[in-house]
């Protein structure tokens, strides 16, 4: 018998009572035997009452089912709220929300060291897409130009759009990055969500009913997929994350320009790459169906698929939401079952080469939360404070695109 408290006194009482019982039996005294037995029962009862709650607690713990059977990512340590500015900046940088610090209203509150640190973070995570034109929906080179009757803004090559300089994420948003948004209460912060979608947010849950991407469990991503692009997120979730981090989704034109890197050969004539690395598709440059993997890969794989501007995995791995609506308003023959948002870039299960180019546009329901759709974010240079923009973009604003030398 092991009692946690008052062990020795109870043991003594127990032995004493046993001795009384033995003596009573020896001298034939029933009264002594009864007295000893009662005393022993009392000591046993006291000991059980003290031990009982622990035993009951252990029993109930055994009955509870094990919930976590998959290796789940551990929750990051919550930053201790600090009143000082440096602590707040540290928290924002840890969460990847450096873009908020570079706003004109905020940047003056940073000292030189914090500014430098924030700019370095920006430079590590984002790449510049300079200002200039991009041709959308390019037509085939075999088009007979003499019969072209285009409208303003169109050339024989397609629809031309002029863009201001913009920064794009070097890689798609990962599960680890999105985890910070979930852990930071992103799904409860109603100000970053469109009011029209509040009712549908009840469906933005994972497999176990926690707020989060569709294929997560218990509000956490799978531990072995921390550096994979986050998938199972709707367009609205991507927009909310973008707002939370101080950025936005790129437009179709920005995405296309970042991928195909137009070069003006002559006025009105641009050369645009079919793929970020050139004109031909090579299986080892992008995670498409031909790569034979059949699933997403970490964002640092397929380094040979880098774009001219330093963006990774523009083609393959996951489709990427953009802010543009799918389809052209001039295309009267196209009927969409619902308003759709544009998708770009192809994914790990994209089968045809011509659907994995920088120019191919697909679309989907903005509420779709599919296994092969993710996103990357953009930040307009005009949204940065002037001194931050100067550091990012250099001394000259709106530098012209490089023009190929005439033969």
């Amino acid at each position, binding site marked *: 018998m092991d009692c946690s408290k008052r062990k020795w006194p109870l043991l003594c009482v127990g032995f004493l009572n046993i001795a009384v019982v033995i003596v009573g039996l020896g001298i034939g005294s029933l009264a002594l035997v009864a007295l000893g037995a009662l005393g022993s029962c009392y000591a046993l009862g006291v000991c059980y009452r003290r031990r009982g709650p622990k035993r009951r607690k252990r029993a109930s713990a055994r009955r509870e089912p094990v919930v976590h059977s998959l290796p789940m990512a551990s929750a990051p340590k919550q930053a201790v709220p600090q009143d000082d500015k440096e602590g707040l900046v540290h928290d924002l940088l840890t969460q990847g929300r450096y873009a908020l610090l570079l706003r004109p209203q905020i940047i003056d509150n940073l000292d030189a060291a914090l500014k430098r640190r924030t700019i370095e973070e920006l430079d590590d995570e984002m790449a510049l897409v300079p200002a200039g034109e991009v041709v959308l929906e390019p037509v085939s080179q075999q088009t007979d130009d003499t019969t072209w009757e285009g409208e303003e803004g169109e050339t024989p090559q397609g629809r031309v759009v002029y863009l201001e300089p913009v920064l794009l994420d070097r890689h798609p948003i990962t599960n680890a990055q999105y985890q910070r948004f979930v852990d930071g209460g992103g799904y409860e912060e109603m100000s970053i969500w469109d009011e029209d979608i509040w009712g549908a947010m009840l469906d933005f849950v994972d497999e176990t009913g926690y707020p989060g991407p569709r294929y997560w469990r218990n509000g956490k991503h799978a531990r072995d997929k921390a550096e994979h692009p986050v998938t199972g997120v709707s367009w609205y979730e991507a927009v909310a994350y973008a707002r939370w981090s101080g950025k936005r989704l790129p437009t179709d034109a920005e995405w296309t320009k970042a991928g195909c890197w137009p070069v003006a050969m002559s006025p009105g004539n641009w050369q645009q790459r079919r793929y970020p690395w050139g004109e031909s598709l090579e299986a080892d440059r992008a995670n498409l*169906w*031909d790569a*034979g993997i059949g699933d997403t890969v970490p964002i640092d794989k397929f380094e040979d698929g880098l774009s001219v501007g330093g963006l990774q995995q523009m083609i393959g791995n996951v*489709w990427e939401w953009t802010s543009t609506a*799918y*389809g052209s308003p001039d295309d*009267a*023959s*196209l*009927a*969409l*079952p619902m308003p*759709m948002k544009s*998708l770009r870039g192809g*994914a790990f*299960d*994209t*089968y*045809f080469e*011509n*659907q994995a180019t920088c120019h191919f546009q*697909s*679309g*989907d*329901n903005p509420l*779709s939360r*599919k296994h*092969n759709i993710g996103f990357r974010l953009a930040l307009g240079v005009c949204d940065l404070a002037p001194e931050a923009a100067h550091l990012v973009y250099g001394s000259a604003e709106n530098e012209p695109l490089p023009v190929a030398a005439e033969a």
Partner: protein
Amino acid sequence: MTRGCELPMESYRLAHYSVQVECYVCGGGNTIDAELCRHCQAPMALAHQASSQKVQPGLVAVLGTTGAGKTVYLGMLMDMLSRRNDGLQALVRGAFSVNLQQITTAALANGEFPTKTPNEPDRWNWVHAQLNSPELRRPMELIIPDMAGEAVMEEIDHARTFPVIRSFIAKTAGIVILVDAIRLQHGGHEQDHFTTKLLTFLSEMESDKASQTSRRKKQQTRPIALVLTKADQCANCFEDPEGFAKTYAAGTWRHCQERFDEVKIFAAGVAGACAYRFGLGDQRRRIPLRVEPRGIVEPFDWLLSRISGNKKGSSRLTLKT
């Protein structure tokens, strides 16, 4: 003055035609130069290949209603198996076997679905392929036609309308039945009724065969892969195909439970998202916005493993999962 010359005797040529070549599907006799069987319209190239290569190809039927996705499924399946480097792979035999995947991939790459398969058997696409897999002891030869759904329904309702269908199904080693998951989910019972009819037809065919061979060793039940197509457009279909079938195709589900031992339910999809395009005469047709095949090979892989298991003469396999 006479001169001697050599002329071929017409009767010598006639000798060729006296030798009948049996159609591989229906067994009917045909002349040696016949392109299609005069009884069932199956291509005679199948019989010629079988005799020249000394193989006995197995037959697999892919069945379903009009618009269930038979052409797309079969075309994508053959194209994917032809492009793979590991796992189950296919090597087509004969130029005619490439037609189906050519038509299908050309249409899909162009942002369209292939046109409806004609009802006339002489216009169907047939595939004869050799399949290799690490799990198969030796390569397996299979013949798979792309049959029109309306023709299949017509044959079930009115026997001998399309004899090739009955002859073919009677000889198949395995069957793939495609069911349109979108139409099921929208509450249309047509898919459920068709599939139930088809399963009834197959089970009666099995019973007839069993009764004919009652004195000999009983034939094993043919495996059936029930594939819910267009599953990418239906919520939870990929996650739980059996649950989806139980919910939206209760008749089919019950029929499978009670009449068949070797049935498994799968979900498959080819288009990630779809829209509509208006053509001539304001006809609206469905178009894929991108092609990302999913669940195409798995049903066929399962079917082949069951067929090869049956061929080895193993005991009746365990109940469906």
